[in-house]
């Protein structure tokens, strides 16, 4: 799979839409930019699109994912176009979730940020593993292992609870057994015997006594109620008698009156009042006047008011009397029913308690008589109830005791079975946990071991002959997930590298660990992102790191490197690194209005060629200056490679003239390059051009003043240098560069493994000799 382009809309620093085109022929893309120009925006976009992570925003505390969207934008969009199709992510709202299309099947991305290296190196062993867990991902198994551990804990807790319950039941039974006078060999034997006893008769007895007690209490209650009702009735009866007397007295006082007449007059008045028009008497049919007749009626009724009042009071009293009479009758009937029923229930006790005989034999059909008999015999029945209550209490206690024993005995039997099951489950859970935990640790150990070898190989290639290495990664014994780093330092072995390694050595160790992990858990389609991981390393280590990256690039689909470390960028720009295999981009001038600006980075040789060939915009000073820098770069490389003797200077800041005159004659005579072409198997084996360098160097010796006079300083002499001389200086530098710089890998020959020449990374260029004669 090859990357075509990455398009960003309103994502983080990409406030304006931008598309970054990848060169499908180059396995590495280097994005150089000073801080704040959008490097992390590009790597975060890939991280958000291709992983569950949200990128560098997660490295900081108290950050809000909504700022994955550019400020003021409602939706961000990331699109990665590849040879396998497009992968799109949309971010809206709070950005808690990122909507991806397709939802699954994205290319694998392994990313490394500087923060991760710092965490890996500086964290405690227990936290260190977290930095690697995305690579050695057994998180799902670990989740199940934690659940298994929980299951084991709860099973143990359940077992302990059951054991406590059994112990309590045993104690209860033993206490009861002792209270009963230890009637069998042991309390368990006794309990077992108790459990075997048929208690149906005892249960019936308890029910019988309870029923008798309940019925008697009902009778007493009903009797109390009857007495209260009877009292109320008597009051109503007395009141009615009093009202009778009052009415008779009123009648005597109103001789002319009669209650019947009073009623008639009131009815007549009421009738006439409610007629709208009436002029004929409804009784005698004589003419009449409504107002006159109503006044006459009111006068007559008024004169009979005392009688009327007595009459009304009597009527109310009579109603009250009737109501109370009915209630009393109902109470008598209800009490009588209870008495008759009770008589039948206690019949069986007449032999044991002969005093209740009268009550039983005299109770007949008349309810009121029956109540009298009850009242008369109540004391005898009370005596009987003392016995009944006592029996009820005794039998109930007996029954409760039996129930308690049986329930505790059954509880012990039942819980013993449960305890056995739980013990067995506990053993199985424990065995399973041992297997799961051991397997997980062994698995990770094996993985770490295999990674350790690769880490050590990569690390040794970065630090050859430095007496450091033997890097090992392993899990801390007796800890669940604690990662320990081990290494050697000169005479010390198996030490924690953090103790003795320098900061830059620890940095490169972190990078090696992550590259080894990405390699192991990635594939040929994996995208590896190194986000600003290299801070400050010296020239030699940087060259080795670049070599390492290029040699490892074959294991990945694509490597994206971002950096603000200018020496790294300049190694490519000046052909000191295989720039031909790197797509080189530069970010500059980010502003919130314009967003990220991407420029194609140029190698210095390309720049010089453009200047020399661009006749429309001929610029002699730029040609002289750029050619001079290019030539200094090549001469610096050659004089170092052949250890040429130059005058000693405090800062090694040699001039062009000092460098070009620094070659011994013996070297110049044999200095040559060979250009090779590929054979059928794709290897550079056939020499198709051999060129001796002395003529070009000699020519450049004659032209090097052009650089100082035209390209370095303002002086009068520079005006006398012809354009042709400037062009010839530029063209000759290009000629020398084209001979030395590999057309395939884009770097100068630096590999001296052959023992007789220096070779470029691809093998297309060879520089002779290997050492100065």
């Amino acid at each position, binding site marked *: 799979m090859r990357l075509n382009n990455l398009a960003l809309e309103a994502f983080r620093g990409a406030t304006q839409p931008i598309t970054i085109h990848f060169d499908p022929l180059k396995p590495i893309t280097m994005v150089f930019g000073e801080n704040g120009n959008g490097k992390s925006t590009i790597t975060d976009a890939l991280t958000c699109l291709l992983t569950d992570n949200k990128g560098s925003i997660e490295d900081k505390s108290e950050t809000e994912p909504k700022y994955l969207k550019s400020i003021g934008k409602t939706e961000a969009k990331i699109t990665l176009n590849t040879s396998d199709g497009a992968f799109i992510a949309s971010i809206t709202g709070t950005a808690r979730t990122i909507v991806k299309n397709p939802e699954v099947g994205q290319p694998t991305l392994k990313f490394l940020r500087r923060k991760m290296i710092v965490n890996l190196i500086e964290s405690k062993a227990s936290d260190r593993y977290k930095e690697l867990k995305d690579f*050695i*991902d*057994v*998180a*799902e*198994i670990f*989740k*199940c292992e934690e*659940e*298994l551990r*929980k*299951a084991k804990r*709860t*099973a143990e807790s359940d077992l302990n609870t059951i054991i406590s319950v059994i112990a309590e039941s045993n104690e209860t039974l033993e206490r009861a057994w002792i209270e009963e006078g230890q009637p069998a060999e042991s309390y368990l034997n006794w309990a077992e015997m108790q459990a075997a006893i048929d208690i149906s008769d005892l249960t019936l007895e308890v029910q019988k006594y309870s029923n008798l007690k309940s019925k008697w209490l009902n009778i007493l209650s009903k009797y109390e109620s009857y007495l209260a009702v009877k009292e109320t009735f008597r009051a109503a009866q007395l009141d009615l008698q009093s009202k009778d007397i009052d009415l008779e007295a009123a009648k005597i006082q109103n001789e002319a009156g009669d209650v019947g007449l009073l009623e008639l007059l009131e009815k007549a008045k009421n009738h006439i009042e409610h007629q709208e028009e009436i002029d004929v008497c409804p009784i005698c049919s004589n003419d009449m006047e409504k107002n006159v007749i109503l006044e006459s009626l009111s006068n007559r009724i008024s004169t009979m008011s005392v009688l009327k009042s007595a009459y009304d009071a009597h009527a109310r009293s009579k109603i009250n009397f009737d109501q109370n009479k009915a209630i009393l009758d109902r109470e008598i009937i209800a009490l009588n029913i209870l008495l008759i029923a009770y008589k039948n229930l206690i019949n069986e006790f007449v032999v044991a308690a002969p005093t209740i005989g009268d009550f039983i034999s005299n109770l007949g059909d008349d309810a009121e008589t029956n109540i009298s008999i009850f009242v008369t015999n109540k004391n005898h029945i009370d005596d009987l109830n003392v016995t009944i209550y006592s029996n009820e209490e005794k039998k109930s206690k007996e029954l409760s005791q039996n129930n308690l024993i049986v329930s505790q005995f059954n509880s012990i039997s039942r819980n013993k079975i449960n305890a056995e*099951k739980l013990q*067995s*489950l506990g*053993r*199985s*859970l424990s*065995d*399973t946990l041992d*297997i*799961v935990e051991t*397997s*997980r640790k062994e*698995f990770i150990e094996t*993985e770490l071991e295999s990674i350790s070898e690769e880490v050590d190989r990569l690390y040794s290639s970065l630090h050859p002959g430095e007496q450091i290495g033997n890097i090992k990664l392993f899990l801390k014994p007796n800890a669940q997930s604690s990662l320990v780093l081990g290494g050697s330092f000169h005479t010390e072995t198996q030490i924690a590298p953090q103790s003795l390694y320098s900061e830059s050595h620890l940095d490169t160790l972190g990078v090696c660990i992550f590259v080894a992990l990405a390699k192991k*858990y990635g594939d040929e389609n994996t995208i590896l992102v190194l986000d600003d991981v290299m801070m400050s390393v010296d020239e030699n280590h940087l060259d080795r790191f670049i070599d390492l990256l290029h040699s490892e690039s074959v294991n990945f689909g694509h490597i994206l490197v971002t950096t603000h470390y200018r020496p790294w960028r300049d190694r490519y720009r000046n052909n000191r690194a295989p720039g031909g295999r790197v797509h080189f981009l530069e970010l500059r001038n980010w502003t919130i209005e314009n967003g990220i600006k991407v420029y194609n980075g140029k190698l210095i040789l390309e720049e010089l060629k453009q200047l020399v060939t661009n006749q429309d915009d001929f610029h002699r000073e730029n040609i002289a200056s750029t050619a001079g820098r290019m030539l200094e770069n090549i001469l610096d490389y050659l004089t170092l490679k052949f250890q040429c003797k130059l005058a000693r200077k405090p800062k090694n800041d040699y001039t062009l003239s000092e460098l070009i005159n620094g070659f011994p004659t013996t070297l110049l005579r044999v200095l040559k390059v060979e250009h090779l072409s590929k054979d059928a198997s794709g290897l550079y084996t056939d020499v198709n051009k051999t060129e001796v360098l002395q003529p070009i160097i000699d020519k450049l010796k004659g032209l090097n003043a052009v650089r100082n006079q035209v390209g370095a300083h303002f002086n009068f002499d520079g005006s006398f240098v012809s354009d042709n001389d400037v062009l010839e200086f530029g063209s000759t530098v290009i000629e020398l560069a084209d001979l030395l710089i590999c057309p395939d890998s884009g770097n100068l020959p630096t590999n001296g493994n052959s023992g007789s020449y220096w070779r470029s990374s691809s093998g297309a260029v060879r520089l002779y000799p290997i050492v100065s004669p």
Partner: protein
Amino acid sequence: MNNNERLAEIIATKLLEKGLIAENNTDFMNKLSGGNLKDVDWKFLLEDVTPLSQNAQTETNETQEEDETE
């Protein structure tokens, strides 16, 4: 096959050897590699299981008891 699946396979093989899971254990492996075995699932899975080691121990004990009886 990812790491979770590889490790699930290793664990399943060992559990099978110990008699802690049955032979047809695809469902178990899927749940294990997917992180979907809760504590209750483990208990359900193992509640009626008697590990082979326990069986062997039980048999040894029984044999010893018989020997002692003789």
